[in-house]
């Protein structure tokens, strides 16, 4: 079984984002970029399935400008077998990403596609579901446990009220939640080996997919600030304030 994993290069989760002075977006020049954390979990799960003998090949794909090659090399160092970059400098929104990934899936014919449940930049949480719809495949989103046996996968899903287990027939799309696994660190020998693994670059316009953005960002603003209040000296003062000043208890 071949597994396709889609990854995105995003502003590193430790960076405090700055809004551009003209409010057109977030400052990304000279900012540390990393693989979206949910996508690291996706790669880890795919590699573990391969190590367990359930998968034969892990192919990783990313869409973006040429710097995404670095992120793909990182994925190869984590255990993916080969990489595909669909290269474009244009803004690619979730629906367009799903359409491109559908094309790649048709070429690669994987049985399982694993994606992070959302990217930590635009927080859309859409691409996996859209891809599943376009392929007319079942989906197991927000997965905290994945068990593959023969032609189906049992997916434990994290819901607002607890957990749900569903069985989906292959081929299927899975999106990862935080507790699916703890991704490994790339070892130095594996980082060296990753440099030799194949990385194929396809220009996005060669795929004949309409990736025109459907949504325009008019402006980006900081959240309305919340000021620090006061420190109280003890429990009695706290309860007094909550009762008589804030009047919430």
């Amino acid at each position, binding site marked *: 079984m071949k597994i396709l994993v889609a990854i995105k290069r995003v502003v590193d989760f430790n960076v*405090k*984002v700055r*809004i551009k002075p003209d409010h057109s977006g*977030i400052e990304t020049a000279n900012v540390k970029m990393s693989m979206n954390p949910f996508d690291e979990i996706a790669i880890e799960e795919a590699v573990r399935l391969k190590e367990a003998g359930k998968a034969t090949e892990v192919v990783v794909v990313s869409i973006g400008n040429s710097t995404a090659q670095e992120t793909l090399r990182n994925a190869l160092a984590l255990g993916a077998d080969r990489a595909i970059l669909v290269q474009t400098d244009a803004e690619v929104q*979730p*629906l367009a990403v799903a359409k491109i990934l559908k094309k790649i899936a048709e070429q690669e014919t994987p049985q399982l596609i694993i994606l992070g449940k*959302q990217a*930590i930049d*635009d*927080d*859309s*949480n*859409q*691409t*996996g*579901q*859209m891809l*599943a*719809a376009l392929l007319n495949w*079942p*989906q197991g*989103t*927000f997965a905290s446990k994945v068990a593959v046996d023969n032609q189906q996968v049992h997916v434990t899903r994290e*819901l*607002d*009220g*607890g*957990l*749900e*287990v*569903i*069985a989906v*027939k292959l081929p*299927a799309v899975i999106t990862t939640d*935080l*507790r699916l696994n703890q991704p490994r660190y790339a070892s130095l020998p594996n980082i060296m080996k990753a440099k030799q693994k194949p990385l194929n670059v396809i220009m996005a316009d060669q795929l004949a997919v309409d990736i025109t953005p*459907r*949504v*325009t*960002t*008019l*402006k*980006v*603003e*900081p*959240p309305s600030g*919340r000021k*620090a*209040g*006061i*420190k*109280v000296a*003890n*429990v009695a003062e*706290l309860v007094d*304030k*909550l009762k008589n000043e*804030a009047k*919430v*208890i």
Partner: protein
Amino acid sequence: MKTLVIAEHDNINLKPATLSTITAAKEIGGEIIILVAGSQCKVVAENAAKITGVNKVILADAPVYAHLLAENIAELIVKIAADFNTICAPATTFGKNCLPRVAALLDVAQISDIVKVISADTFVRPIYAGNAFATVQSKDRVKVITVRSTAFTPAALGVSAVPIENCEIVIENPHTTFVSHELSQSKRPELTAARVVVSGGRALQSKENFKLIESLADKLGAAIGASRAAVDAGYVPNDYQVGQTGKVVAPELYIAIGISGAIQHLAGMKDSKVIVAINKDGDAPIFQIADYGLVGDLFEIIPQLNAELDK
């Protein structure tokens, strides 16, 4: 203009997030029709028919819809929504699972997690874990939207009911089977709808110590929340998690105990009306957004707090 709102429910009760979604739909304007898809869920449709501002309820009642699986519910929505301008669902795990499928089948974008309606095609939504807010405009013929429930006041239930129309479309779901649920059982209020939330972090140190949080929550009639660190450490189940990737809450009173205040946690609770932080580290970032901060050892403070509340 017509808006279709997808009801979230468990075949018995309508989830409160649906009511907030109705409020967002009202701000968008036009006729509002609710779709209740499920199995043996007529009672849900009857309740939905009483929500003020709703014009009609469509009830799709069939065993194949019992567990609200994304694949066939999305196809059903697409069949029903042919001539609608807007499709809305709550930005809960249900809405997030199902609605992008609808958008893709319609070949339109989805706008996720809106917190404000500017006009029928322009909305405000958080990005970067709530560290920025984007005002976005959709150019698509149908707007597909998920709504952050804490950002909109729930619509009220009235006395008179609008008509319920039965939808006979039955779509099978041959590739996905529901296996089981492990739903958290709790006598406490639901986290996203509670007036008071008491949350604990990693400083609690163990599952047993989390009972301290429970004791305080019960005194205040509060729901219990947790930071991601506390969930990852196994102190509490995943559905207690408050934060950008967990639940977003905005209660009247939020008490954060032993939570340092990582950005991802703050994104899930900073819209609370009053925030109390209890932490032994006086420099913890949580104090920068707390209305009332108390520096000290939670193992001493919680019992004192319980005693003080008993007075």
